[in-house]
């Protein structure tokens, strides 16, 4: 456990030692700030059926920034170690491969969570200024942030897998970006292909991140997406572990 903690803290510190972390943080704060501001000014102009908090988590801005950050967070995880050769000292000390994989995954997850912390402030400021809460209930906040965590876990684990497959960070980023975007659009198919059967649309709907976020941000905690994302994350991490171990295959 101590070894895992040492690896994890190295991963998290690694983010803040590189400019990437600050670029992602600034980019993300700008986009989410604009998002928040636009949603409020939009709602000031007309009557709407949803709350500020729902609007914030379901806007186009939000999704745009959302799919973009994962490749940036995960591309360096393994690819950088392969490139610099630091994988050699790392794998010749008595640590297990799964400790390395989990440390890298959770390191990315910690950074991802740090990324979202400032957005809590938006709602606090809104409450202070407007003198009314941005959501109907505490459950709506909990739901949104839970969904963020679940989606984050899944997309970060995809990023882990693409990073372990190559020593080139750009390639890792491009593959994970394509994979995440594809998955994301899979959920949109139900809105586009209106002529396919309703079963197909329903099936694809189960994979729709937008739909899941819609449900959760209303404060409705559905167990199906939870199981989907947690299990998919585990699958991705198992694959990452296998790919990482492939260097030891006797060919």
């Amino acid at each position, binding site marked *: 456990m101590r070894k895992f903690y*040492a690896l994890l803290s190295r991963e998290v510190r690694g983010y803040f030692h590189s400019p990437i972390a600050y670029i992602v943080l600034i980019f993300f704060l700008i986009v989410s700030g604009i998002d928040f501001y636009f949603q409020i000014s939009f709602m000031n102009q007309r009557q709407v059926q949803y709350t500020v908090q729902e609007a914030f988590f379901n806007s186009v801005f939000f999704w745009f920034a959302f799919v973009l950050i994962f490749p940036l967070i995960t591309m360096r995880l393994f690819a950088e170690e392969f490139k610099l050769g630091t994988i050699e000292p790392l794998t010749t000390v*008595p640590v297990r491969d799964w400790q390395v994989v989990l440390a890298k995954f959770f390191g990315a997850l910690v950074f991802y969570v740090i990324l979202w912390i400032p957005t809590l402030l938006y709602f606090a400021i809104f409450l202070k200024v407007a003198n009314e809460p941005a959501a109907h209930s505490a459950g709506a906040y909990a739901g949104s942030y839970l969904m963020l965590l679940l989606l984050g876990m899944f997309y970060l684990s995809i990023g882990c897998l693409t990073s372990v497959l190559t020593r080139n960070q750009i390639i890792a980023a491009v593959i994970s970006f394509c994979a995440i975007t594809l998955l994301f659009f899979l959920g949109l198919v139900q809105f586009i292909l209106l002529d396919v059967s309703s079963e197909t649309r329903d099936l694809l709907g189960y994979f729709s991140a937008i739909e899941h976020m819609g449900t959760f941000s209303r404060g409705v905690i559905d167990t199906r997406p939870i199981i989907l994302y947690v299990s998919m994350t585990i699958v991705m991490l198992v694959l990452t572990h296998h790919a990482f171990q492939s260097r030891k295959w006797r060919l």
Partner: protein
Amino acid sequence: MIKVENLTKRYAGQPAIRDLNFEVSRGEIMGFLGPNGAGKTTTMRILASFMPPTSGRATIAGFDVFEQSLQARAHLGYMPENVPLYSDMRVTEYLRYRAALKGVQHRRITERVGDVKELCGLKSVENKLIGALSKGYRQRVGLADALLAEPDLLILDEPTIGLDPNQIRQVRELIKNLGEQHTILLSTHILPEVEMTCSRVIIIHKGRIEACDTPGNLLGKIRQAGGVILEAKVGMDNGADELKKISGVREVITDGEDDWKRFSLRVESGVDVREEIFRLATERHWAVRELTQRRATLEDVFVEITHSDQA
């Protein structure tokens, strides 16, 4: 400490090392010599469980490096070639991180990190970013890292490459001192290093072990066991013919354009012919300005072994 049996590694069908067999016992300093691409790094990487062998097996302290890799690694301090390091970390920070990974007890980390910094002369750069260090200091960080957990066995891949002569001397002293408590396997290009530090030497060439012995025995084995250089004014005499008559002299090569001739004599091993040469020179009234015995070096051994099939 190390036992290697029929170790073979192929890269895409091309053998990098073939059927290696050797043993390193506790307390030995084993030198690993060979031209570039001979398979030194491959062998060391297999021993450090960085990559698996294609066939054969290797054990460290009785643990198979592939099957019981974790236990084998726990006995090992490994310094990879070119010492890859995280350039965004500071020296102390890095060593503390590595100590934790190697399972050094928490309360001993500060002490151990302090000790290895002292030993490797890193005190003056302890708060610097590794990325800002010179090659020599990076090398020392790698060495300090290998020593952190007080391993039984040190595997050092080219520990002196890229260092200046003073640093090389320091590292040599360090390795010699370490040899009192640790078993060491080190590879290097610098042959005098090996002669001075190692108790045994393996010469590997094209993936095969060509020789494995003490430096002294290796020197005894080769043809050019030694020689004598004579620089003299021989006048009208044919110096070479005269010199050949001395028993023990096998071959004489003559150099020199003017009156001063330079004779390089190949001599049977263990024979000192200098006295005979002196007698001959006084008899013939040769003027002598140099008479030296040249000892064979490991370099001669190395060149002879690794060039034999290229000539």
